[in-house]
């Protein structure tokens, strides 16, 4: 049994190469251990005090979000809530204020839940994950990272240090919407994110849609093409319902998930298009469009 507080990435990577597992906020690890999902690892390295991983860097080619940036940081960040609004829609829905204070983007990504609220936004935004170990650094598309529920292709000695998002194209934006039964401390019943780029005539010239909680991992909808906003939204809804492979569990049946994920996908396309056209729809979109809104 050992516990070590790392203050630099190198310290953390050294501990990982010696067999330790990382803990940041602990909201997945500690709760999971108590539920018997996975015992608490005997050797732990706390990474939450590595200052360099708490930063958001805006560069010419996009934005680099450190792995320890919290959901609260994201929902309050001026650039992320506007130019990458779909991601902020997701972070702002995670748990409650206290969960968002400790829950990190890196932890969310590496926990690899198919119901994670930042997953489908990151996928449609073209996110890449930066993994580091003492052996070196690699970047991979986020869809390659997730191999199953709670599983990634990262090696045990690799630490997620950052998520890279490319600069958005002109006249583009994104949105994430989830179906929820209550307004807080909720896990997505289903969810969908869309990123769209508008042509000069207001039609959609490029679109990506990804789905939450309807497959073993976050999945991207394939086969979508541009067109009017209404046509693309309808096509996204139909394709989402067709391509989803949901399960039935205590939260929803597979039929209900298959239907509602289409509804979420269509609405996400419409909201992303409104934002891409310059309309300011505040984060999180769920509150703005009425899902869970105070009546």
């Amino acid at each position, binding site marked *: *049994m*050992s*516990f070590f*507080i790392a203050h630099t990435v190198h310290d953390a990577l050294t501990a990982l190469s010696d067999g330790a597992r990382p*803990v940041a*906020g*602990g*909201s997945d690890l*500690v*709760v999971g*251990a*108590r*539920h018997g999902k996975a015992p*608490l690892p005997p050797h*732990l390295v*706390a990474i*939450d005090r590595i200052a360099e991983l708490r930063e958001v860097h805006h560069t010419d080619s996009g934005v680099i979000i450190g792995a320890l940036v919290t959901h609260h940081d994201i929902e309050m960040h001026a650039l992320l809530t506007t130019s990458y609004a779909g991601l902020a829609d997701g972070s702002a829905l995670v*748990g*409650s*204020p*206290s*969960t968002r*204070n*400790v829950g990190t983007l890196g932890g969310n990504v590496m926990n690899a839940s198919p119901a994670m609220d930042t997953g489908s936004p990151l996928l449609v935004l073209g996110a890449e994950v930066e993994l580091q170990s003492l052996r070196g650094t690699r970047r991979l598309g986020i869809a390659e990272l997730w191999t199953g529920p709670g599983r990634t292709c990262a090696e045990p000695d690799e630490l997620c240090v950052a998520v890279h998002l490319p600069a958005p194209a002109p006249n583009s934006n994104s949105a994430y919407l989830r179906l929820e039964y209550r*307004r*807080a*401390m909720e896990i997505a019943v289903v969810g969908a994110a869309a990123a769209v780029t508008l042509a000069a005539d207001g039609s959609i010239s490029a679109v990506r849609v990804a789905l939450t909680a309807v497959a073993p991992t976050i999945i991207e909808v394939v086969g979508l093409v541009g067109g009017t906003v209404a046509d693309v939204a309808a096509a996204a809804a139909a394709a989402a319902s067709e391509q989803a492979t949901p399960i039935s569990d205590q939260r929803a049946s597979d039929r209900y998930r298959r239907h509602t994920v289409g509804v979420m996908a269509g609405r996400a396309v419409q909201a992303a298009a409104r934002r891409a056209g310059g309309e300011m729809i505040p984060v999180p979109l769920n509150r703005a469009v009425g899902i869970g809104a*105070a009546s």
Partner: protein
Amino acid sequence: MSQPETISVVLRVNGFDYPVAIEQGRNLLGVIRTEIGLTGTKEGCDDCECGACMVLLDGQPVNSCSFLAVQAQGRAITTVEGLMPADEMHPLQRNILEEGGVQCGFCTPGMLISASALLSRNPAPTDEDVRIGLSGNLCRCTGYTKIVAAVQRTAAEHRG
């Protein structure tokens, strides 16, 4: 029988340093209640859902049931007992009593922690801001309305 392996750490709670020897997997909630002896912080769901265990970590509300105690060393922990000096009542405590926002009282410490964090960053919240600020705290008795009123009354008093 071998003794469980422990780690010696110092936890700073409400401005006092408490040296404790604890197992690595212990949650902060259990150490605050058992080793340190401050029982204002409650164990509700033990699952990061109900907020009864809420404490401030460097001023930010955190569910102490799901935070490793060893990870809290070197950080400022504030429990409900530390909101005010001994024997004085915090305005939030007085107002939650006067507004009738306490029935069984089990959620109250967590509510007070979340509300104090909210008011320290937003001294003039809307009712919606208050509800979002308290959204990680479940109350099975009051229906929340009187708790929201207590937070708003505190905010109004503070603004004068």
